[in-house]
């Protein structure tokens, strides 16, 4: 057989649920030691495929194998070679970290001889040792994911199947998680990982892009991009918000969005596109061709139809225009026992502003948002939302805001339209108005055809869209979104941000927390919060300029993870970390460090491309967290 060293294979594997073909004749071969990424929009069939590979779900036809054993016929035997990590947190919240690990060690019959040391090694390796006796339910999102990974690793599996393991995890924890994956891969463990983060996909040795149950393309991330044939025209105009709708009319079939300060147009013919743009746009414009990113390929899967234009114009319907400050707080503080979750937060957010709230898991973002929504009473300090005091008048606030919680919180046992009707109803809508808003919400969530399905059937990103639609069904003038995009696919995320921008353009305050650092760029202003304290605030630009003393060197190199350790030891180097497919080196002395890096790679005769770049929001985030941690220590 040619796939002698294939750790994971699938041959024509198919699975249908009722009429829906979840996985349609997928054939796949993953080599030993590979980190293989599985990407695709929500509902593409990634989870179903993984479950079949793991032998937990019986395929309708076809077969799969793990380390040469059939997932279908030997599904008990393959379990010893394999570990699977489910998308939902699958451990016991009322058990401690150690108790959870111990349970899995026993279930996998890990040799008792040096089990204790082995568990401790895993704890050390993942920096979880200090939390050994903490209940899993009390861990932050990032730590929970690490714990689940440890439990999967305890029997030293040869193959790891990870279903969106970093969902809802902040960048610092995600870097840590990937550090572990690289180390495992170096030890020869084969890893299949599905992810909604495309920077993670770029780190994989190979990726497969799935859509509608089929694998569309497989290859290294760069070959996938090259083969796509997609061209990107990038335009910089004086007023992007105004011009984007114009551009959308020019290219009705293309995916178009604002990225940073430019508008990106997805096209197959750059020359024609650039000509068209030059003819039709007034004022100063700057058109360049850019290298497509994985995200652009992703977007091309779901080219946007005209209706989304209508949709965005509908977003703002019925919103009462207001001006001035919408959210003001002074020394807002929340304590739970002796634990200070939020410490003296000062905010002043205006109507029409997109206000981003950044911070690692457990920093106090959700607690702050809950106080602002009237769900928690502050311990001290005060604040007002929409003119109402958050301690004295929480019920008044609730009439004027929309809130989308971090956890999916619609009723899974209701049908989709019933959830919409329910929220419409408790926000006081009825009759024609409710009907209109229902249609609008179904349109917004893209669920018009599925409105009579049970909500439990929805895949991740669809749920998020429905939840968003429900939370703004009453056209509030202030909207709080607590990690609205976590777990959603890039296309959904982009739609989310289009909606958010449209809302803001109509004068709505959008108060949003997120883990996706590239999303922070969409915000007008940002606050960064760490361990309950606000450590930075300003516009994205200000944050990058004001709070970053260090400079960033970007290193594009194959197998970047292998150089981290040596590069970190260089003099003048403050930090080296994975970034996308390469590395970001943070230094206060860029010239000499750049020199050293170049020397280092040429001495190894490795081809590497290093250059000084403007820091990304993630660099700012990580560097600020580092500084805060040093200050705390």
């Amino acid at each position, binding site marked *: 057989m040619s796939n002698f060293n294939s750790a994971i294979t699938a041959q024509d594997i198919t699975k249908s649920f009722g009429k829906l073909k979840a996985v349609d004749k997928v054939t796949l071969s993953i080599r030993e030691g590979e980190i293989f990424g599985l990407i695709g929009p929500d509902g593409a069939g990634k989870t179903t495929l993984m479950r079949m590979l793991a032998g937990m*779900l019986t395929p309708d036809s076809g077969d799969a194998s793990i380390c040469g054993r059939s997932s279908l016929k030997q599904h008990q035997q393959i379990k*010893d070679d394999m570990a699977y990590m489910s998308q939902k947190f699958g451990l016991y919240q009322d058990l401690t970290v150690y*108790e959870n690990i111990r349970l899995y060690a*026993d*279930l*996998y019959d890990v040799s008792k001889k040096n089990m204790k040391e082995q568990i401790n090694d895993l704890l050390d390796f993942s920096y979880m040792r200090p939390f050994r006796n903490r209940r899993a339910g009390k861990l932050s999102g990032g730590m929970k994911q690490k714990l689940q990974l440890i439990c999967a690793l305890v029997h030293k599996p040869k193959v790891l199947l990870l279903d969106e393991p970093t969902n809802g995890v902040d960048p610092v924890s995600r870097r840590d998680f990937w550090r572990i994956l690289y180390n495992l891969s170096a030890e020869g463990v084969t890893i299949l990982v599905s992810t909604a983060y495309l920077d993670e996909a770029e780190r994989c040795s190979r990726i497969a892009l799935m859509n509608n149950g089929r694998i569309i393309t497989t290859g290294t991330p760069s070959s996938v991009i090259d083969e796509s044939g997609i061209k990107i025209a990038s335009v910089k105009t004086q007023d992007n918000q105004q011009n984007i709708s114009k551009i959308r009319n020019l290219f009705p079939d293309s995916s178009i969005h604002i990225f940073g300060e430019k508008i990106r147009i997805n096209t197959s013919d750059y020359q024609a596109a650039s000509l068209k743009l030059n003819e039709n746009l007034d004022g100063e414009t700057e058109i360049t061709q850019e290298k497509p990113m994985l995200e652009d390929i992703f977007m091309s899967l779901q080219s946007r139809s005209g209706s989304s234009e209508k949709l965005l114009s509908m977003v703002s319907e019925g919103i009462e225009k207001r001006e001035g400050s919408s959210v003001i707080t002074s020394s807002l503080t929340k304590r739970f026992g002796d634990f200070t979750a939020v410490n003296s937060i000062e905010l002043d957010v205006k109507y029409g502003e997109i206000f981003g709230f950044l911070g690692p898991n457990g920093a106090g973002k959700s607690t702050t948002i809950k106080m602002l929504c009237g769900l928690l009473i502050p311990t001290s300090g005060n604040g007002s939302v929409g003119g109402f005091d958050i301690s004295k008048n929480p019920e008044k606030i609730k009439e004027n805001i929309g809130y989308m919680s971090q956890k999916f919180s619609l009723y899974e046992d209701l049908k989709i339209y019933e959830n919409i009707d329910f929220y419409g109803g408790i926000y006081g809508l009825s009759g024609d108005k409710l009907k209109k808003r229902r249609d609008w919400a179904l349109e917004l969530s893209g669920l018009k055809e599925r409105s009579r399905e049970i909500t439990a059937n929805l895949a991740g990103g669809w749920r998020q869209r429905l939840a968003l639609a429900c939370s703004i069904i009453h056209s509030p003038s202030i909207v709080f979104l607590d990690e609205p995009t976590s777990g959603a696919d890039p296309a959904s995320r982009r739609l989310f941000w289009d909606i958010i921008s449209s809302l803001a353009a109509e004068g709505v305050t959008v108060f949003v927390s997120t883990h996706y650092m590239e999303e922070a760029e969409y915000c007008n202003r940002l606050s960064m919060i760490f361990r309950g304290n606000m450590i930075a605030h300003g516009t994205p630009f200000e944050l990058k300029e004001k709070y970053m003393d260090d400079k960033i060197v970007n290193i594009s190199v194959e197998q970047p993870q292998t150089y981290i350790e040596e590069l970190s030891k260089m003099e003048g180097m403050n930090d080296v970390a994975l970034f996308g497919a390469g590395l970001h080196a943070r230094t206060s002395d860029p010239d000499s460090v750049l020199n050293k890096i170049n020397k280092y790679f040429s001495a190894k005769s490795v081809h590497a491309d290093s250059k000084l770049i403007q820091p990304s929001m993630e660099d700012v985030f990580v560097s600020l967290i580092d500084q805060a941690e040093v200050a705390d220590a």
Partner: protein
Amino acid sequence: MPDSFSFRRLKAIIVKEFLHILRDWRSLAIAIAMPIMMLLLFGYALNIDLKNIPTAIIDYSKTPESRELISTFDGSPYFKIRNYYDDKQEIEKAIQRREIKAGIIIDKDFAKHINNGSPVHVFAVIDGSDANTGRLVMNYIQALGMIYNERLTAKKLNFQSSQINMKPRAWYNQELISTFNLVPGITAIVMVVIASMLASVTVAKEWEMGTMEQLISTPVRKLEMTLGKAIPLYVIGIADVMIAAYAGMIFFDVPLRGEPALVVLTATVFLTAVLFFGLFLSIALKKQVLANQIAIMSGFLPTLILSGFVFTIANMPLPIQIITHLFPARYFISILRDIYLKGVGFSMLFTHFSFLTVYAVLMIVLANKKLKLRLD
């Protein structure tokens, strides 16, 4: 052998389940307090024995003969004279107010008619709203009437009363103490409810919380899973049996005449049956709420009413007697009662014990058959 049963995995599941139980102290406290509460409730508060029936008298006769009749009633353990009235209306009103359950009306000519040998009637009005009690009251009135007649005749004919003298002997429970019955009945109810209720959530909860998906990706086997979940609950159940037994002895001097080991053995088989019934519900329904509701509904009332605890099965209509065979509590209570009060050995209990065992085995098989450690 990957398909073999592993004690280590079993132990791992047991430890995990124990930790869940210990961390939810409130549920644990209720599980432990339940038998004590039940025992006190039944021991002190509840009494099904029909004694001291509150009775009112209208004595229009007011003669030694009528007083003799009244004292026959008042002297029996069954009736207690609460009131004397002058008007029939008052009896009905008192019954409506639930003050009395029976009223006896003695005519003006009562003594006269007795002495001249003409027919005499004594009328009684009883509360028929509770027909069972009403029928018993009616039977008691007639029985006491017969005793009064016998005395009257003996007096008239100068006989010593009662040539045939009944010597009542209640075996196993000389003084007819109803609390002696409590321990078996209460143990059964507590067991059925606690065990099937707690068991009915365990598997469903794992599906609902999403922990099952992770768990079944490991080599864990069905039997390890079901046993691992049943054993910790078994420990609680057995603790409840002990608590009920000791509390019964301490508070109410309930004797244990048979082998204590036999009690534990029976309880073990019974608990197995009930626990695996709960697990079966949990596995089959996959929803905590539903499994739990069905567990309680099929547990509490049937055990209270159809098990022979409060109502004697032999007194029920035949079709209902057949239905009672569906509830293992029936066998359990009967076996326990025999061990406690009759002190009989295993050979006497064999039939009931076999029924119980069959039931338990059936439940184990059903639960394991229904359990699918896959996502299909």
